């Protein structure tokens, strides 16, 4: 109990400070696939493609292999919920320094990045999954308090076993690509998976230790849509290879909105070099965007876009994850000067079960340097899950 006191006090202090001054997503780290011995994301998560509430196995792993010790169970093991109920919470407080060369200098903000509560009610092979929370923002906005209350995910799922078929209906992101936790990542931001862009839809698929496939039909949030507003379908396939130390995958997505159509295809790859504790991840997506003509606009040639991600993560010791990566987004391959690159570096310290301290830095460069000096972003984040 005494060992636990300091981290809890630190967490509470930061939580209070960040809450009074000012949420992102509840995604998981794909870096844990293979590096922790788990080959499927849903070994640790209730969701078939990972993310969100973790299950009992995931909680055990969080305490035994991911963090530097402690009990990863709900309430630190003080109470076991009945089998039909799973609950949890995520809180992320963040301090951000954002330097884009503004005349007033760098921007500094302390804010709650994520505050979500999870509930899963299960009866037989069915479960109702609900996430409700408060969305934070690094900048003060003159919006109504209601706009800060959000439910990123809510869906009904049929899944007899963690390996096998499943169907779910409700609000969630269609499984697609690497599914990085960091929402500024180009593979999320420019492919329709930015913060709060979860869509409504029906998804079905099959998950096994050797491979998984997911198909989704979706439509935008009909109450408060964010980002692209297309209806469409997405598929994602991943196959584990090299004795469960690597995988390759492919994804496709078609989305048709009132203003445009977007057709994306891509591939992913992951490889864990066990002796060196290194995980390599890559994703490439190509999108063809067509702008729909209207009464005054007669149309334009289709636009071909490219999004890439490549990163390396090193696990030097239990409880520590260090990584770096490069991303590119070219919004129109036929036009020079519109591509963006970003270099990222991050360190995640899981100093005790339930706790994480993360330093994330990002340097976006516009137009291969022709768009001015690179921006510099640094974020320190304290994460606590219940």
């Amino acid at each position: 109990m005494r060992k636990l006191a300091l981290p809890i006090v630190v967490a509470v202090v930061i939580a209070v400070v960040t809450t009074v001054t000012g949420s992102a997503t509840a995604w998981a780290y794909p870096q844990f696939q293979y590096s922790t011995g788990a080959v499927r994301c849903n070994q640790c998560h209730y969701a078939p493609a990972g993310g969100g509430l973790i299950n009992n196995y995931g909680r055990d792993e969080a305490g035994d292999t991911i963090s530097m010790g402690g009990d990863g169970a709900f309430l630190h093991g003080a109470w076991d919920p009945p089998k039909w109920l799973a609950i949890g919470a995520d809180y992320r407080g963040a301090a951000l320094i954002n330097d884009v060369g503004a005349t007033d200098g760098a921007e500094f903000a302390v804010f709650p990045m994520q505050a979500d509560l999870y509930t899963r009610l299960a009866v037989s092979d069915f479960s109702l999954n609900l996430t409700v929370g408060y969305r934070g923002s690094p900048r003060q906005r003159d919006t109504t308090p209601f706009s800060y209350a959000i439910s990123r995910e809510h869906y009904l799922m049929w899944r007899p076993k963690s390996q096998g078929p499943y169907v779910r209906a409700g609000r969630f992101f269609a499984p697609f690509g690497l599914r990085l936790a960091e929402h500024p990542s180009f593979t999320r931001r420019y492919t329709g998976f930015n913060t709060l862009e979860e869509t409504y839809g029906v998804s079905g698929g099959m998950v096994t230790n050797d491979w998984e496939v997911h198909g989704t039909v979706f439509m935008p949030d009909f109450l408060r849509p964010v980002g692209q507003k297309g209806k469409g379908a997405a598929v994602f396939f991943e196959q584990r290879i090299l004795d469960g130390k690597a995988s390759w995958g492919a994804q496709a997505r078609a989305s048709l909105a009132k203003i445009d159509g977007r057709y994306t295809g891509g591939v992913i790859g992951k490889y864990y070099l066990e002796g060196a504790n290194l995980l390599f991840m890559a994703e490439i997506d190509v999108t063809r965007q067509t702008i729909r003509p209207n009464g005054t606009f007669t149309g334009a040639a289709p636009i071909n876009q490219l999004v890439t991600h490549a990163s390396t993560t090193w696990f030097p010791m239990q409880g520590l994850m260090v990584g770096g990566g490069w991303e590119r987004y070219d919004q129109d391959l036929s036009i020079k000067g519109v591509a963006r690159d970003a270099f990222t570096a991050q360190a995640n310290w899981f100093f005790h079960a339930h706790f994480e301290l993360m330093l994330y830095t990002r340097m976006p460069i516009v137009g291969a340097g022709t768009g001015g000096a690179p921006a510099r972003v640094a974020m320190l984040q304290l994460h606590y899950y219940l």
Partner: protein
Amino acid sequence: MSAMSCGGIDDRPASFRYIHATILIPNCATSGCHSKLTAAFGIRLDTPEAAYSSLVATAGLVVPNQPDRSRLLYLLRGDEVAIPMPPNQVLPDVDIELIELWILDGAMNN
């Protein structure tokens, strides 16, 4: 009409519908900024109708035919403003030039 990019001919149309779909939606209509959810500073850029209305109706933001008097361009270039827009990653110069050309052409809802 087309803008010149630094590397070659930029033949993209200086049309609001095109600019909205390719530049404003992915870069500005995000959850914490100019989406329907947040509408920062009362400006919504998530639909062509709302975006055109917000940009042209907000005093001084876009002045048709007068880029020099259009505050939007100062925000995008980070000139004489506290924080450039978008605040986390500025737009490529050629995108700003395309928006400037649209304003110069009369900032029509085309």
